């Protein structure tokens, strides 16, 4: 749609933005090659890959591997729940229903109530009910109070000025509400749903406050890393950052290649 100079300017701006986003990442990658005697800040004391080796050994404090696995599973759970619950609720909000206003206010409030207090409250609730708080029950719930508002509001943006004519056309052709959703609505909102799933994943993966008092006896990755910073920390943390970044970028490249490979080879007849 936009061509010529505007396109180049916007493209340049986007490139700068990406560079800005990767500023800390660049520092992390550089410093993860810190020499064996070096620390988490400049100056570099030589260069080595020692910290990548150390990443897969036992640390002085904490257990990165287990915490990482736990965080990935939790993030995947939160991701799935966020996508399903937000989409359902957003579809509900497209019609009037009693309590819609209150539910919306509660959703916005969920963004504001300090996470530590949510954590405290949910932790106490589980205590009161005699349930053992754990990352997969109480922390899962507490994190959903954080990811669902984002999911719902982004779905509002996705459904904004959504043309109802398509749905009506499908209904006129005799499609059931389920069919309308599956064959008409879902394909159109799919990119948005992928977006909120990603949001849910990274918000959960990074959440500290709401997990702090709800994870029970075990730590998720952010808790584990914060725990580690109460003792001598090493560029192992940066090595972890570098590996995560590299693996994510590789996954994107792999996905691109897969898409290219799977693209239908046969051109439609003219």
């Amino acid at each position, binding site marked *: 749609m936009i061509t010529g100079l505007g396109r180049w300017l916007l493209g340049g701006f986007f490139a700068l933005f990406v560079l800005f986003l990767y500023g800390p990442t660049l520092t992390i990658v550089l410093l993860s090659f810190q020499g064996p005697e070096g620390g988490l800040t400049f100056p570099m004391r030589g260069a080595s890959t020692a910290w990548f080796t150390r990443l897969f050994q036992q640390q002085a404090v904490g257990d990165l591997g287990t915490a990482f696995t736990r965080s990935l599973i939790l993030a995947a759970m939160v991701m799935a729940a966020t996508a399903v619950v937000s989409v359902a609720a957003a579809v509900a909000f497209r019609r009037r229903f009693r309590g819609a206003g209150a539910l919306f206010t509660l959703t916005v409030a969920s963004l504001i109530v300090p996470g530590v207090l949510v954590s405290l409250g949910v932790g106490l609730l589980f205590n009161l009910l005699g349930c053992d708080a754990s990352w997969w029950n109480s922390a899962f719930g507490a994190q959903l109070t954080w990811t669902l508002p984002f999911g719902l509001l982004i779905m509002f943006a996705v459904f904004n000025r959504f043309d109802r004519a398509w749905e009506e056309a499908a209904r006129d052709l005799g499609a059931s509400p389920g069919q309308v959703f599956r064959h008409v609505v879902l394909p159109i909102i799919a990119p948005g749903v992928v977006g909120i799933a990603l949001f849910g994943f990274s918000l959960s993966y990074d959440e500290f406050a709401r997990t702090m*008092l709800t994870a029970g006896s075990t730590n998720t990755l952010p808790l584990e890393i914060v725990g580690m910073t109460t003792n*001598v920390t090493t560029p192992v943390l940066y090595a972890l950052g570098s590996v995560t970044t590299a693996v994510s970028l590789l996954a994107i490249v792999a996905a691109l290649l897969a898409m290219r490979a799977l693209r239908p080879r046969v051109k439609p007849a003219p």
Partner: protein
Amino acid sequence: MAHAKTIGRRTALKAGLGLAGAAAGSGAITGFPTIWAQNIRNITLRQFGTGVSNLNALADKVKQDLGFTLAMTALDSDAVSQKAVTQPRSYDIADIEYWICKKIFPAGVLQPMDVKRIKNYDKIVPIFTTGRLTPESRIAQGTAPHTVGFVEGPASTKFAAQPTGWMTLIPTIYNADTLGIRPDLVGRPIRNWRDLVDPAFKGKASILNIPSIGIMDAAMVMESLGRIKYGDKGNMTRDEIEKTTAFLIEAKRAGQFRAFWKSFDESVNLMASGEVVIQSMWSPAVTAVRSRGIACTYQPLEEGYRAWGGGLGLSKNLSGIELDAAYDYINWYLSGWAGAYLNRQGYYSAVLETAKENMSADEWGFWMEGKPAQSDIKTPDGKVLEKAGAVRDGGAFAERMGQVACWNSVMTEDRFLVQKWNEFVVA
């Protein structure tokens, strides 16, 4: 009064958040006969605390020596206090600091320990029992560990003034903090706490970002400047708090501070990156800076040290074989290996005698007696920390722990303190 206090806290939580019932109710002893040696291997004790002492090496050694599993969870210091009070179901052993114990133990989530079951009780450094390192020592200001070290009985949450046989925490590690400096960047001898606010270090100084402790760093500076004489730096009056925060605001406006630190790691990074050249610091943090090839000194000062201590407390929910295992663990902790391990990191252990048996004469001389190292001093994983001939900053144990001016504390006026601290932050 004591009774009223406990009830007050309990009802508070019950009415507001409905917690205490669950915590207290499950404390009943259910002890069933067991064949010890077979069952103990299946036991897992869940311990949490900061990363300072929740070390994997300790858990590995416990597994090897005692046979059961010690599952350790490291958290930051704020999370530790929250979890101790509100999540009693999630831990068996709490590794907390003495000053915050003043708030945690009255919440009724921990059970006192019977000293009769603790083998090396008599050998615990007397700082934790009588408050005096030697019979002649003066008791330091602040929340000295012995003032919150005992309660009146097995079911009590009221702190006792004298040793009673019921201990709240078993001391594990403690230390005396002072200023850490970058001698290469400071460029002159540092002798007093007041040097922290020397305009020469403008924009390069730092203190702790925990209100109740940061204000004591400031108090050490104020007193060193001769601006004020505190009744008790660890329990200031409103007037003293006002004057101290006014002083902090003045220093902040003059641009004295670069950044405050909260975690061990922050203090190391600030110092190693040259952002800060003088700040209140822990001994092992100084060691960590030095191990990166950067000159850093743990500087003894004329006014003395600000000390802190941590210990292990038992969850109220522990009973039966788990409780027995916990006592075994505590006895193991005081039996020397753990003490030696912590001493080698620059902390101090509670029972010196047993730790000494687990250290070489050279190590003991360097870490505890202030003697020059005969050979290279190494970390547990074999990295050289100090070359032969080096002397530990601050000298011997008795010199350091004998010069404690003040312990980390909870002040009576801590509500007012936090308000004033927030005023300082916004100024």
